């Protein structure tokens, strides 16, 4: 559990075993606003779980409740087996990395990193040893005497991490820690954080609105919307089998196309396949999807198609007009206008023929589309 140097025994600093974090029916109200609505969620010991959602969805509030910076209106919060509702933040023994890093501007890097150790009255000698080894593991040795104002964004981020790691807390809480970094640095730090988690084996609750970050950092992802938990699962399942249309639209880049469709329950061919009629044409369904919609027996259905499952095909069943083309080198994103005015995003990989804006195009859908209930958005299982 040593920070990088494989350091053994940490002397008087008790090294907490990574532990479980749980929300049990947690609700938080600010006046009339419900920020978190009856959240029940568990982060396993040693697991990295990402709370994902758009801004204002309550993910940061949930994190702050776990940190002890907010008091839940209702529900039980546990760290390990201990109920911590009435435990002050300073006594919870969890570390937090803030979006703004929240480094103490009047203290140099060394003093920033050792701040939590001083709070715990760790002897000077051991403090020095822990600060040195942590700084080394994050490449901060040469910056120890600098003030935060003299550091770059990436370096500040590292100091914030070092301050969290140095005390070997029971869990890490991270509030959009990468969102103040530029794109390249963010990609680097993302990999570094994932590696760090792997190396330290600690429990991490990570908040972000960036679905790429969520997919790469989380062993599991919890998607939140308006304070309500939508789905918790491993990234692959959240991506491939989104629980509802909101999750489907939020995960994936570019996001999934969501279309209103109509299904004729009496329709169908001998081999048990059918199609859903949408604006601009139709989308074919395999036998299982057809059977599921027949069982459901309702004509209206919401259809989701990922941009990568659309391809240009002269025999395609969707007729669109090319309205926007973004060439990214390794792939191309097309914004296609449907006759009814809606837009459809298409992701084309490899070399494809030059497209001219205004061209009409036929698109084929690969595989079954995602099907959702148009009223509550829940997935229709096939």
């Amino acid at each position, binding site marked *: 559990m040593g920070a990088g140097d494989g350091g053994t025994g940490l002397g008087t600093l008790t090294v907490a075993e990574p532990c479980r974090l749980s929300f049990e029916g947690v609700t938080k109200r600010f006046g009339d606003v419900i920020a978190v609505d009856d959240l029940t969620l568990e982060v396993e010991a040693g697991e990295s779980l990402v709370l994902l959602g758009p801004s204002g969805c309550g993910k940061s509030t949930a994190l702050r409740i776990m940190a002890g910076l907010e008091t839940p209106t209702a529900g039980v919060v546990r760290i390990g087996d201990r109920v911590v509702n009435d435990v002050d933040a300073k006594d919870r023994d969890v570390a937090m990395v803030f979006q703004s890093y929240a480094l103490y501007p009047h203290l140099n890097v060394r003093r920033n990193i050792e701040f939590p150790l001083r*709070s715990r009255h760790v002897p000077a000698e051991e403090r020095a040893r822990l600060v040195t080894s942590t700084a080394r593991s994050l490449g901060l040795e040469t910056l120890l005497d600098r003030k935060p104002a003299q550091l770059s964004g990436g370096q500040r981020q590292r100091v914030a991490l070092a301050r969290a790691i140095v005390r070997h807390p029971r869990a890490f809480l991270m509030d959009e820690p990468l969102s103040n970094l530029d794109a390249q640095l963010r990609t680097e730090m993302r990999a570094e954080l994932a590696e760090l988690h792997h190396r330290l084996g600690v429990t991490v609750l990570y908040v972000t609105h960036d679905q790429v970050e969520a997919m790469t950092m989380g062993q599991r992802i919890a998607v939140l919307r308006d304070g309500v938990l939508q789905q918790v699962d491993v990234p692959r399942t959240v991506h491939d089998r989104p629980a509802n249309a909101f999750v489907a639209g939020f995960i994936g880049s570019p996001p999934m196309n969501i279309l209103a469709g109509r299904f004729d329950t009496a329709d169908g061919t001998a081999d048990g396949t059918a199609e859903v009629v949408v604006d601009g044409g139709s989308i074919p369904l395999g036998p299982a999807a057809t059977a599921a919609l027949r069982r459901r027996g309702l004509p209206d259905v919401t259809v989701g198609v990922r941009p990568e499952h659309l391809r240009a095909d002269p025999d395609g069943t969707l007729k669109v007009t090319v309205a926007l083309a973004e060439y990214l080198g390794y792939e191309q994103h097309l914004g296609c206008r449907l006759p009814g005015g809606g837009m459809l995003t298409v992701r084309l990989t490899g070399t494809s023929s030059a497209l001219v804006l205004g061209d009409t195009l036929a698109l084929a859908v690969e595989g079954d589309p995602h099907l959702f209930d148009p009223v509550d958005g829940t997935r229709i299982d096939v």
Partner: protein
Amino acid sequence: MSDADLAPGTAALGEVAAGASEGAASGHRWLGRTLREAAVGYLFVLPAMAVFAVFVFYPLLRTFWLGLFRVAPYPTIPSKFVGLSQYRSVLTSHDFFASLGDTVEFVLLTVPIGIVLGLALAAMADARIRGIRFFRTIYSSTVATSVAVVSVIFFTLLNPTVGLFSYWLGIEGGNGILQSNTWALPAVATVTVWQNIGFTFILMSAALQAIPEELLEAARIDGAGGRSRFWRVTLPLLSPTVFFAAVVGIIASFEAFGQIDLLTQGGPDNHTNVLVYYLYTSFQNNDFGKASVLAAALFVILLAVTLVQFRFLERRVFYG
């Protein structure tokens, strides 16, 4: 080169010469422009300098000069140049040291207590509770109260026969607080602290609100309790404001006059006779020479104290 300059044989040589003379000319132009810019700059500073010269520098020098003359007790008799002997006699007199002692005591009673109280009030009023604006207004209200009004209020409260304070302390009818050799100076200091608290409160409140909430949250998560957060995060970040309040407060306390004139007139038995008041009474007695020596001494003391503060205290200040 000068040959070429005089008789350009070829076009190329001529060009070189032209280039050289152009370089010299641009050098002159550069110097000229710098001088012109400097002149314009000084022109802008001039009005302010003129005002300072007339109202600050000249009186200052004149004060030091006047200290060299002994003024006769009657206006008709001319002043007499006595050199530094008047400086020596005044600044070694028992009265001067007594007055300096009172002044230092007054400063020590007002400045630290004022800053601590102002900071404490600001910290309390920083709480996010309903109706706190009411208290903020009350706490800062003394800023809008003149020293004369404050003095009259306290003069009444401290009155030995009808004053509320005398009644509460159970000493009504006896010797008044302002008439007590022991309590007159602390009483005047208390009035001064009360009068200044609004200003300190506003300063400290503004500084407190400028501290990012996240830093205190981070400190909490890093295991720091309330007191620890204050000493390790809040106070260091407030240090520029505390330093400013100390420098300004010390100068103001050294120069306090109104409350002393209205409450005690330096009494009883010279126990509130701070330097400014001593200077004032000397001036009232037409002893301009002595008053000038005292004024010069006050200036030098304040300058020294302020320099010492910048030299030693400012090292502990963190400017964000």
